[in-house]
């Protein structure tokens, strides 16, 4: 029996180690490859036989010195993700909060709509929305890129679940002290909901940072590209832009990984939101 356990222990830990190495391999090899000359990278791909003597910072040098468009994309992505986080957290939290703490006519219907939007695939709405953006002359603007993410049903749902657990007695106490309903939310309940804000900030930020299909439709000019669109524009059959692509990819993903290391708990809560049971 004891011997058996030891064998199990080995099997489990060894297989987990192997799976994790496979999971991390692509990102590690991306970082290592970013130091290889891009011409060699196109010719040989990511390979086990790396020649350390060829390592240099030339890709990074190129991107910092000769690729101002990359930094324009970076700025666009930062601004869009930042605004999306602020706006969508504000709008989604007040809706989720109201659905949780108030009894009002139409509440269940509205909650049903929230679930409905979660279920409807965005791809179906895409063409009519695109046409709407054309009609409103919003094509190629930050507004059009952000709009579908501003009131996020999944965030509304998450905030509602979280707010259901808030102590309602606090609200009555505040009312007696003459606090308005808005004051109750902003001064008392919102601070109590901070962990849910952290989780949703990460979910919305990451969704926006990595968003691809919708920006691909509404973005027209190079100076409005977000990072994923800009990087994808370099993935052409004739492309030899691997210097920007590879160093640019590293700088797109590594800040997120660093944030993850510091805020793991909120990343996990945010990215597994779908699993919250009602």
């Amino acid at each position: 029996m004891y011997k058996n356990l030891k064998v199990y222990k080995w099997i489990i830990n060894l297989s987990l180690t192997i799976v994790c190495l496979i999971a991390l391999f692509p990102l590690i090899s991306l970082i290592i490859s970013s130091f290889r000359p891009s011409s060699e990278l196109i010719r040989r791909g990511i390979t086990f036989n790396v020649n350390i003597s060829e390592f240099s910072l030339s890709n990074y040098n190129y991107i910092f010195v000769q690729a101002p468009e990359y930094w324009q994309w970076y700025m666009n992505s930062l601004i869009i993700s930042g605004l999306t986080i602020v706006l969508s957290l504000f709008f989604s939290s007040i809706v989720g909060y109201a659905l949780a703490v108030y009894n009002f006519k139409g509440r269940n219907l509205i909650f049903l709509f929230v679930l409905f939007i979660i279920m409807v695939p965005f791809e179906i709405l895409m063409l009519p929305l695109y046409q709407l953006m054309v009609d409103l002359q919003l094509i190629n603007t930050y507004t059009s890129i952000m709009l579908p993410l501003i009131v996020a049903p999944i965030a509304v749902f998450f905030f509602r679940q979280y707010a259901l657990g808030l102590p309602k007695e606090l609200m009555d106490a505040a009312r007696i002290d003459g606090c308005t309903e808005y004051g109750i939310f902003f001064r008392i309940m919102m601070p109590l909901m901070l962990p849910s804000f952290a989780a949703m900030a990460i979910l919305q930020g990451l969704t926006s940072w990595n968003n691809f299909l919708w920006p691909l439709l509404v973005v027209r000019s190079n100076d409005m590209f977000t990072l994923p669109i800009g990087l994808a524009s370099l993935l052409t059959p004739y492309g030899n832009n691997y210097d920007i692509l590879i160093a640019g990819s590293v700088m797109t993903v590594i800040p997120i990984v660093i944030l993850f290391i510091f805020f793991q708990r909120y990343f996990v809560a945010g990215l597994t939101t779908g699993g919250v049971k009602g």
Partner: protein
Amino acid sequence: MSATSATSKNKQNKLMKFLNSKKVVPYVFVSPFILSFLVLTLYPTIQAFIMSFQRILPGQVTFVGMSNYDRIFNPTFYKALQNTTVYMILTVFILVTVPILLAIFLDSKLTKFKTIFRSALFIPSLTSVIVAGVIFRLVFAESDTAVANQVLGFFGVDAVNWRYNSWSAMFLMVTLASWRWMGVNVLYFLAGLQNIPKELYESAEIDGANVFQKFKNITLPFLKPIIIFVSTISIIAGFRMFEESYVFWETSSPGNIGLTLVGYLYQQGIQQNDMGFGAAIGVVILIIIFVVSLIQLLLTGAFKRSDM
């Protein structure tokens, strides 16, 4: 002068009182949602159906009846449907079975460094699909010095032209998706495993149950709701797939080996500017997703109350 300011102050007070009444406040709070629901969901949903019966040219929209739908069922569409279905089945299978196994390993008291393993598995989900595509294109490059072909070479297999064969194209898309979503699904199952009372396993051990009996009779039934949940989102995500194909071939792959339903929608609706036809493809995708999810939920008995 002072009289008017007094009445305006009075009016302001009344407005404040009105806005602060418990009858009105909830509607103020939910108003952004109602607005966005009407403009960004309800209107486009209805519009999608209307557009699917139209031919849309700049400044000229004509009603064409079922003609868009008559055109849909062509060989290219069937190729897209076939690719998408195969992709969906493979990803659902892989992204349910492997994460269950990994979650059981991670949950075991024999496992060391649980947090490190869990984080390592989770990190790929932070990667944007484009960055993942950049890496996968280089790992699975045509050159026989690239990692994937090096591994094949180690086993004495000839180098593969990954992006130009039908089977390897599917392999690339499924691998990329599995790599990115494995860790998130592991977390779902891990949460499920932690809800199982440990005494159940102990009493089963006393009764002499082996590992597989314990898995079949305790673990699986407890994980059933999560299996249903994960497979449902994987089915829907499978039919919505676009980006995993785009990063390898943009929108045109040799012989359409990477074409998906949404890819076909994008190609026709945006690139060919045939919005009516694109909308019709969208409606068909919606119907397919609805029917398949319904069948799946019926088969797994998700509607029986006792299971949930």
